[in-house]
């Protein structure tokens, strides 16, 4: 087990209610886990707990068998990287090169190796032509790719994507999702994606659905997709295809061409 949560509860200082309630789950090395949930379901809190940015109110977190605590958090962090939601707020360097180097400088990697790694991973995320560019001249997707390069350069075993695509346009989202697949297949990284988009969770080995700080669903994407009622109760939007099938299930139409599909869809939407 790479990560293990044991009865983890968490509440923010001054709050009455727990954000996370007695959460237990584990992530295998080399697998991909998707954590689904609506806004405020506590899914981003899980990411911060894993990274040691927050401390659980009760319960224990183990990373590769070692208990996460203040003493070893700095060492354990070297195994983990995280890509946050806002592309702007996690861009530390003044240029692309500086930003990829930031983590390497922190871990005291020698300069020659640093330059080699920057070149290697900038090429991997297809940003090699922008090395001296300032963040203001980059798109959101490009900034997120730089963040991925930064995490990869640190040679982490685990990469967490904390709603990394929610502020990007469709093109940027596609790029990042393709990148996640590459990381999984070619680099054997353990990946956790945190999202409220069911479609993004379909590539995962395992899906966890959170609601009110508790796990309401846990299984393969196929198993999870069947539980439509629970998914909807957890405030998640069903995949377009599935909701379309649901809509036309009791509505018999003979579709001849595209215009008729549009006509039927239009009528259905207004009936609902």
């Amino acid at each position, binding site marked *: 087990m790479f990560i293990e949560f044991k009865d983890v509860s968490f509440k923010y200082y001054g709050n009455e209610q727990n954000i996370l309630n007695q959460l237990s789950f584990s992530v295998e090395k080399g697998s991909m886990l998707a954590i689904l949930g609506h806004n405020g379901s506590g899914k981003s809190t899980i990411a911060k707990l894993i990274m040691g940015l927050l401390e659980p109110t009760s319960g224990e977190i183990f990373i590769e068998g070692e208990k996460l605590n203040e003493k070893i958090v700095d060492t354990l962090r*070297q195994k983990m990287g995280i890509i946050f939601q806002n592309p702007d707020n996690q861009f530390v360097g003044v240029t692309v090169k*500086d930003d990829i180097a930031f983590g390497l400088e922190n871990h005291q990697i020698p300069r020659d190796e640093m330059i080699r790694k920057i070149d290697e991973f900038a090429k991997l995320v297809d940003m090699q032509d922008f090395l001296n560019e300032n963040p203001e*001249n980059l798109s959101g997707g490009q900034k997120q790719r730089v963040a991925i390069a930064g995490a990869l350069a640190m040679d982490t075993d685990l990469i967490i994507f904390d709603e990394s695509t929610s502020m990007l346009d469709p093109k940027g989202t596609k790029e990042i999702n393709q990148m996640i697949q590459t990381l999984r297949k070619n680099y054997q990284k353990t990946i956790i994606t945190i999202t409220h988009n069911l479609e993004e969770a379909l590539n995962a080995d395992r899906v966890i659905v959170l609601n009110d700080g508790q796990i309401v669903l846990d299984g393969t994407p196929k198993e999870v997709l069947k539980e439509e009622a629970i998914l909807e109760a957890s405030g998640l939007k069903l995949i377009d295809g599935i909701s379309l099938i649901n809509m036309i299930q009791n509505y018999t139409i003979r579709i001849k061409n595209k215009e008729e599909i549009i006509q039927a869809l239009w009528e259905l939407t207004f009936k609902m």
Partner: protein
Amino acid sequence: MNDKIVFGQYIYRNSAIHKLDPRVKLCVLFMMMIGVFLIPADNFILLGIAFLIPLTAVILSKISLFKYLKSLKQIAFIMVFSFAFQLFMPVGKNTTILTTLPICFSYVNIIVCIFILVIYFLIRRYLPFKFLFFLVCLIGIIYLLRYPILGKAFYTTKLDISEAGLIHGSFLVLRVFVIILASTSLTLTTKPTDLTNAIEWLLMPLEKIKIKTSIFAMMISIALRFIPTLFNETNKILKAQASRGVDFNEGKFKDQVKQIVSLLVPMFVISIKRAEDLADAMEARGYIPGAKRTKLVQMKFCIGDFIVFFVILALLVGLILGRCGLYAL
């Protein structure tokens, strides 16, 4: 978001001054500052030599002189003011009085002066040559005050212009001119990030007395990184508030202050949220304040850097020794 905001005055050219090590440039600027104010107040030859240093930088930098003059324009008012102040300052008895300006106040004179001032402040924002206009107005007022045009003067006095005052005044202006020219050639030819690195390097001795200069340097570099971002943010909020009917330009002073609040509150909220996210991102990537880090940017002195540094240092040491009385300057 796509507006390209360039922070600082840096202009890229392929010149010797641009390639000069930023640490050397910064040191030279400091030495210039000390040196220029150590030059005795009537020694125009030494000041001329000091002036040659930024002049060489200006010529070698391949940046048009116009850019330099632009930054001088900003302090032209202060320069004229301090010159006038020095000029009319009563100095010791043993200097020759060049001319005496009789000044007399009559009601008509004062009214005309006020009228000129009002006109000046009203139309100056529409004029292309503000500074020239300012000088014309100033001379006009001085000339006007010499003669009682109409009405009887109720108060007359004299202003002496002495030779020493003239020399002191022009010397002060020239000193400031040299310093401004030197610092402008630094900011025009050096990237803000290079300057930060230079400052961090120069402050390194402070690490010995347990002052964490690396934290200080990180703060400056993050500020440099986020100034354009926050600038964009401010523009967005300004537009958002303007579309809700906030007018930042018109209205009474009290209203304007109130309207600024509608800009500041969202700015602060957003900045704090950003700072929180940034702190998380930095911590997650292993940043520990004050801990040892390796550096990607490596600055290396070359022979040219040493030559420039030691030439300027020699000039400064020579000046200091001269001031100490070892030989006549």
